[in-house]
C-alpha cells in the first residue's frame, strides 16, 4: 500500500502498524508525536494501530528553536 509519511510517499505491505513503521524508521515512540490524517495520536498508545492505503501520517519531534 501507499502511505504519505511526512509529505513523502512511503510504500509498505498492507497491515503495517504504527509500531512497526516506527521500528523500521529506527524511531522510539516516546520521542515523537504523531498526526494521522490530521488527528493527533499518542504514539505510545497507538503502536498497534494499523495504517491504511492513502493514510497521511506526520511524525513530529522537538528540535532546537527560539
Amino acid at each position, binding site marked *: 500500500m501507499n502511505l504519505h*509519511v*511526512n*509529505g*513523502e510517499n*512511503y510504500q509498505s505491505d498492507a497491515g503495517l502498524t504504527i509500531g512497526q513503521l516506527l521500528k523500521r*524508521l*529506527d*524511531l*522510539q515512540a516516546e*520521542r*515523537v*508525536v504523531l*498526526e494521522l490524517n490530521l488527528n*493527533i*495520536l*499518542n504514539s505510545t498508545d497507538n503502536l498497534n494501530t494499523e495504517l491504511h492505503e492513502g493514510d497521511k501520517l*506526520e*511524525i*513530529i*519531534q*522537538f*528540535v*532546537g*528553536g*527560539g
Partner: protein
Amino acid sequence: MDSLVIAGRKFNSRLMVGTGKFSSNNAMQSAMEASGCEIVTVALRRVDINNPGDSMLQHIDRERYLLLPNTSGARDAEEAVRLARLARAAGCEPWIKLEVTPDPYYLLPDPIETLKAAIILVKEGFNVLPYMPADPVLARHLEEAGTVTVMPLGAPIGTNRGIRTRDLINIIIEQANVPVVVDAGLGAPSHAAEAMEMGADAVLVNTALADTANPAEMGEAFKKGVEAGRMAYLAGLGPQRGKAQASSPLTGFLREE
C-alpha cells in the same frame, strides 16, 4: 533577585533561552547552564525519516527547565493551534510560546492571526506567551484574551540589533498587568540590561548565545546583564536632564574670583 511569576509559577531567573542554532548539544547545554535560565524554548518539526538523528530532548533536564514549545513556522492561527496541540500531545505542560510569522523576510508576527490563535488556545487551557509586534493596543487585546505574558519584539528575530521599539515597549510596560517579556533582536547583554532597566519583567534570547564562539561565556554575560538591569530598575534610575548638573562641589575652587 526578586522572582518572576508567570501563571502563578515562580521563577528565579528572568532570562529565557532559546535552543535553536547552537553548533552542538553541548554548546546549547553549557549556554543554558551558564545563563541560569529556567525556561527554554523548543520548536516542533517533522522528523527527517531518511535521517532521524538523535533527539535533542535527551539533552534537556526536564526537572530543571520548563520546556516552552513554540509555534514557529505557523503562518496563520490554524497552523499555530495545530502545533500547540501537538506539543501538548507530546507530553509538554500546556505552556506555549505563540508565534505566527507569515512574512519570511523579517519574520514579523501577524497581529490578527496571533490574537485569533491566542483566544482559541486560552480557551483550550494553554498558558499562552505570545510573540507580538511592540504594539500597546495589541498587548491590551492579548491580555484581555487571557495570555499569561506579552512578548513584544525589540527587533526582528536573529538580528542582534537591540531594542529598536523602545518607546512602544515603554508604553506596553506602563500599561500591562501581565509580565512583559522582551523577545527577539537582543544581541548583547547591554540590550538585555536596557530592557530590564526599562521595567520589562524578563527577556528571551537565542541567537546571541548560539551565534558566538563561546556560548557559555555569553550565557553568563546575559545573566549578569539581566540581573544588573533588574537591580537598577528596582533601585530606581535617576532622572535624565538636558543640562549638566555638577557631581563635584561648586565651591572652593583654586582660583581668584
